[in-house]
């Protein structure tokens, strides 16, 4: 392989310049999209540390694929898809052992959710119930009701069919309704939000 061509000013090669341009391009995207991706990651993971780690990994994977993805003009969808699937993947890494641990946590958190509902309001109870959903169902809920993606867009992000999105969402809502306190009154929460 020959030497990369030098530009007329000496020192910096065309290859170096392209890399700099690429990094600058990526850095702009990183700065612009990081806050919103962090919020989504927080809803998926339920804690700040995991959310920050998840976002860093998603952007790192995006960085590795930047040229390919940028040229396809689908960066937002791609990085969101990495984020959601990486969340499932991180969870999976020790899936056998952690499954039991998470199940226990879920049981405790659901118990706490009902207690919270009586003292702190329905929002916290609902938040805890969402965190108790299976990760895939939680992802559907976050994408549909926070990101407000359509069923088709949600299906595309998760790499599943629209039918599966519908059934997952329906099941998740039924589960939340069952798990949330019976006296949960959305009108009260609306007033609290104002």
């Amino acid at each position, binding site marked *: 392989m020959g030497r990369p061509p030098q530009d007329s000013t000496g020192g910096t090669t065309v290859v170096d310049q392209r890399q700099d341009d690429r990094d600058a391009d990526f850095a702009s995207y990183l700065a612009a999209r990081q806050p919103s991706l962090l919020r989504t990651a927080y809803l998926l993971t339920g804690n700040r540390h995991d959310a920050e780690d998840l976002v860093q990994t998603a952007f790192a994977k995006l960085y590795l694929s930047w040229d390919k993805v940028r040229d396809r003009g689908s960066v937002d969808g791609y990085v969101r898809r990495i984020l959601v699937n990486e969340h499932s993947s991180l969870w*999976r890494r020790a899936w056998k052992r952690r499954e039991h641990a998470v199940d226990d946590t879920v049981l405790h958190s659901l118990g706490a959710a009902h207690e919270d509902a009586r003292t702190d309001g329905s*929002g916290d109870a609902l938040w805890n119930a969402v965190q108790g959903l299976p990760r895939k169902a939680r992802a559907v809920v976050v994408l549909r009701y926070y990101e407000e993606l359509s069923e088709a867009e949600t299906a595309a992000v998760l790499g599943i069919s629209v039918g599966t999105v519908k059934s997952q969402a329906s099941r998740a809502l039924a589960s939340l309704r069952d798990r949330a306190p019976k006296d*949960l009154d959305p009108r009260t929460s*609306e007033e609290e939000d104002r």
Partner: protein
Amino acid sequence: MSDDDLTGQLTRTLTRYADDMAGPSLPLAQVQGRARSIRRRRTAGAVVGAAAAVAVVVPTLALATHGGGHRTEPLPSTQNTTSQTPSPSQSGVVRAPLDVRGLPLGDAPADGYLVGRTLHLPNGSTTRITTAAPVDAYVTLSDDTIVLHTRDAGGATAVEVIDSHGDHHGPYPATDGVVVDANHAAAGWVGTDGHPYFWNEAATKPDRSDAQVSGGSFEARALADTCDSGGTSPDCAMLVRTTAPSTGKATDWLASLSPGDDTVQRAAPDRRFVGLTDLSYDGREIGLTRITDTGSCSGVAAGAAPVTWKTCRHTLLAFSPRGSYLSADVNFHSGLGSSVFAAYDYLGHQVFEYRSRLSVQATVTRSVWEDDAHVLAIVYQDGRWYVVRFGVDGSRELAAGPLRGNDVDAPVVVPGAR
């Protein structure tokens, strides 16, 4: 509460929690550092998950006498519950006869197992499956989807899927092999049309890769470690072996599974190996370095580097999930099962070797690493089949069985075992 009330409440609650979330800005250098770390795990486009990639599927020498077509049925277990550990030799290697009778009873295989049509699930329950043909291999996904590879009496193979809701899909025409990525997020196989297919968690149908292999028979051997983003990763690939019908020559390929990418490239094209057997998550490779009429040699290499170490005493089979150990069997495959089962550490030091004797004859037909310290092997001895858990510390215990059966058709299938 109506769905509209609940979804409205959901949106408000999620928005309120999300709005409270603000973190320090993530510098580009930090992202680049993480990217370098990820890239190190992907070597030369050939990083393949080790958890499911197990063993060269070549019939090996049968030593056991014929058991004679008994009906498959579990036998009462009379074992105690303390695992058995032969004493190591002076070199620290545990060497003992390959004799699995009377082993203590341990836990069932962590990912379950299949006996006939009865699936033994990891939680200890059982369920009946109804496939069009007998199952000869299967893998499980972390959402409890089960991807079954079937083979009918005429040898025709297919894949059927039972998803996490219990819904049945398929059969889909398939060639040999069903594989799963290291995270149990996606399973894959090669269709009779030469296209790799994969099934993601929560899917309702398989995805077909645009890539296509040709030239003889096909076998799916492993899925890339980088398939953990639902098949969207640009580096997601399947290791496929093609075998030429006229010469029997085997060639290994990496076929892309990424949407819009139809590349197929030679795996290990640098001639260090005559065939690729397995690759660790961190880019090390196991391959056959030489095959003769009487034996073979296997070696381990990292990335594009020369072979680090090799052995002609055994055939190296598979890395443990974290790559700390390697399983191995007899160095000459010529029948139905291996008379030897062994393990090495990553530096090439042998840790155990169980070998059949004239007076004690058993064969290992398939194996799979259960975790980084234990490998499950399906063993036939004296008319019975055993699933034995071999520890790298030399311990052995019974994970399932014994089951009556002839010496050809194992009545038990362990997920991922090949």
